[in-house]
């Protein structure tokens, strides 16, 4: 088990280097000039040249990448072209908001998704199953920004149960939870739908297995047959979907943060892209990518914990 984790951690190094390189190259290949964004419309040719020289933009790409990556390994993501602020600092201020939102969303998505999927499988071909299928289809189809606006309109403006925007308190306080609920539902609904579909098919697959019949033949209570014998096996594919979705949610906070005016990494990224703030975008994307990869590592570890056959491979 420990060997598996160490092996997987070592595999992360080339992966993250590759990600950083791709992000770096694609940003530099994208049209737009950071120097003209910094200099503004009144900047002369000479001004722009001197800005480029200052930022090191005239150096060969590989030199620039090497300079960047040697900073990154020391925890220094560089300085914003726009605000001169440290990228690491700018991200770290906003990251907790994004992370809390993603966590809250994945909790919402998992609880709703696994619950609905399980019920729908056990009650296969009944009206409950149909309801859950329709719900899942709606969940996948409804765009985030629309759902968010409707939720704000109903629950914040109309009934005033929850605040309309902003995150001011930590998530473990009542006020913090209230602030997170609407954004978490907005962001988590699509994932909940995917998780529900996956859970349904996994449970239907497992429930036909011989060992479920054995459990029943032993006289195990139906509740334990489903929750213990069936779900533990069905969770293996479901956890993959939850893990992948958590990664998507981290990236997907961009729109939700915008709708709910949450000061997170997503909003930071939008501003940075608009301003051609290369270092800021690189830092944010690198962070999200790293988290995505780490979540996948976590999923692999969970696999091994759930399924003993994987531990020995």
């Amino acid at each position, binding site marked *: 088990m420990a060997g598996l984790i160490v092996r997987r951690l070592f595999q992360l190094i080339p992966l993250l280097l590759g990600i950083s390189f791709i992000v770096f190259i694609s940003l530099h290949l994208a049209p737009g000039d950071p120097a003209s964004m910094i200099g503004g419309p009144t900047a002369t040719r000479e001004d722009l040249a001197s800005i480029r020289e200052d930022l090191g933009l005239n150096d060969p790409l590989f030199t620039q990448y090497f300079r960047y990556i040697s900073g990154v390994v020391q925890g220094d993501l560089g300085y914003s072209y726009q605000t001169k602020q440290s990228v690491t600092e700018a991200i770290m201020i906003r990251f907790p908001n994004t992370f809390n939102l993603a966590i809250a969303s994945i909790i919402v998505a998992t609880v709703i998704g696994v619950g609905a999927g399980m019920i729908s499988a056990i009650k296969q071909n009944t009206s409950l199953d149909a309801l859950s299928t329709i719900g899942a289809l709606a969940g996948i189809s409804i765009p985030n920004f629309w759902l968010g606006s409707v939720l704000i309109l109903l629950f914040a403006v109309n009934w005033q149960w929850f605040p309309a925007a902003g995150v001011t308190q930590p998530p473990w306080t009542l006020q913090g939870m209230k602030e997170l609920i609407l954004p978490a539902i907005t962001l988590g609904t699509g994932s909940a739908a995917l998780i529900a579909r996956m859970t349904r098919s996994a449970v239907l697959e497992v429930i036909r*297995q*011989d*060992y479920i*019949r*054995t*459990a*029943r*033949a*032993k*006289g*195990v*209570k*139906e509740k334990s047959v489903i929750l213990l*014998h069936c779900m*533990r*096996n069905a969770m293996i594919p479901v956890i993959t979907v939850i893990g992948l979705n958590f990664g998507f949610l981290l990236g997907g906070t961009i729109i939700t943060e915008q709708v709910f005016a949450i000061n997170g990494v997503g909003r930071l990224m939008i501003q940075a892209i608009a301003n051609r703030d290369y270092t800021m975008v690189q830092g944010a994307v690198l962070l999200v990518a790293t988290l995505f990869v780490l979540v996948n590592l976590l999923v692999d570890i969970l696999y091994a914990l*759930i*399924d*003993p*056959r994987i531990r020995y491979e």
Partner: protein
Amino acid sequence: MKDPVLTVEGLEVRFQGAAGEIPAVQGASFSVHRGEVLCIVGESGCGKSITSLSVMGLLPGSAEAEGHIRFDGRDLLRLNREEIRQIRGNDISMIFQEPMTSLNPVFTVGFQLMEPLVVHRNLSKKQAFEEAVRLLERVGIPDPGRRMEQYPHELSGGMRQRVMIAIALSCEPKLLIADEPTTALDVTIQAQILELILKLKEDTGMSVILITHDMGVVAETADRVLVMYAGKVVEEADVRTLFEDPKHPYTKGLLRSMPNVDDDTYTLEAIPGTLPKPGEIQQGCPFHPRCPEAMDRCREENPRVFTHRPGHMSRCWLAEEEDQDHAGESVG
């Protein structure tokens, strides 16, 4: 004769399919006596597994069972879910054909073995563990303490079937149903497993229903035999009578399709044709298209049950002359 432990009367099982009702078992009646091994024989699809699943109350949702299954003074088909659950794994246990897939891959052998002990006998974890180790020892698993911590994929097929037997025997059932317990195993392991089942039967006095399609297994293990064809019991006799004086042409066919290495002149014969498809409506005896002795009457009328002597019954028109019990059940 000793008291019956289980009595099945007029069992009918039907499946609801897209094309309508499909009968799987039609009017099966038999009983199992204390300490007896009853073998149910027949080709795949003849209804023998469905019969045993009806006893366990484990039929799939699309199936509907009628008739009576009496056990311990109760009709199992009339019990509610909770009542039948308390009997399963406790008074009646079952082992299945596929030891490779019958154990849950994500739980240890110990957990799966301790489960019925905790569920039915309310043992504490510690007591259940000790009892489980004792059970593993009893079914001939070496180093049981270590096996308890292992997962099914770490065990061979034979070992897994031994674990299944240990699970089935954990609550000292009165009746063990073994559904083709050796079909998926190597020949040498087959003999060991059958021997183990018979030995445990002797030790505990339980009754056994052994489902098989292998007449060799029947000869080795059975006290009485039930031959099933297309959802019906076509012959019932004690094992000696069945082998020496089979009445139904299907039974005769099964016996002829058994290899015999002692007799050089013996030729192995297969029964021509296949079982009728489930739901296929047929006039007359369901075996007549494959029967070498079929008469005109067989094509038109379904035979009723004829009694040759007490305990030996068959469902074939050829047996009519020998019938001793004209009050035999009439069959439509």
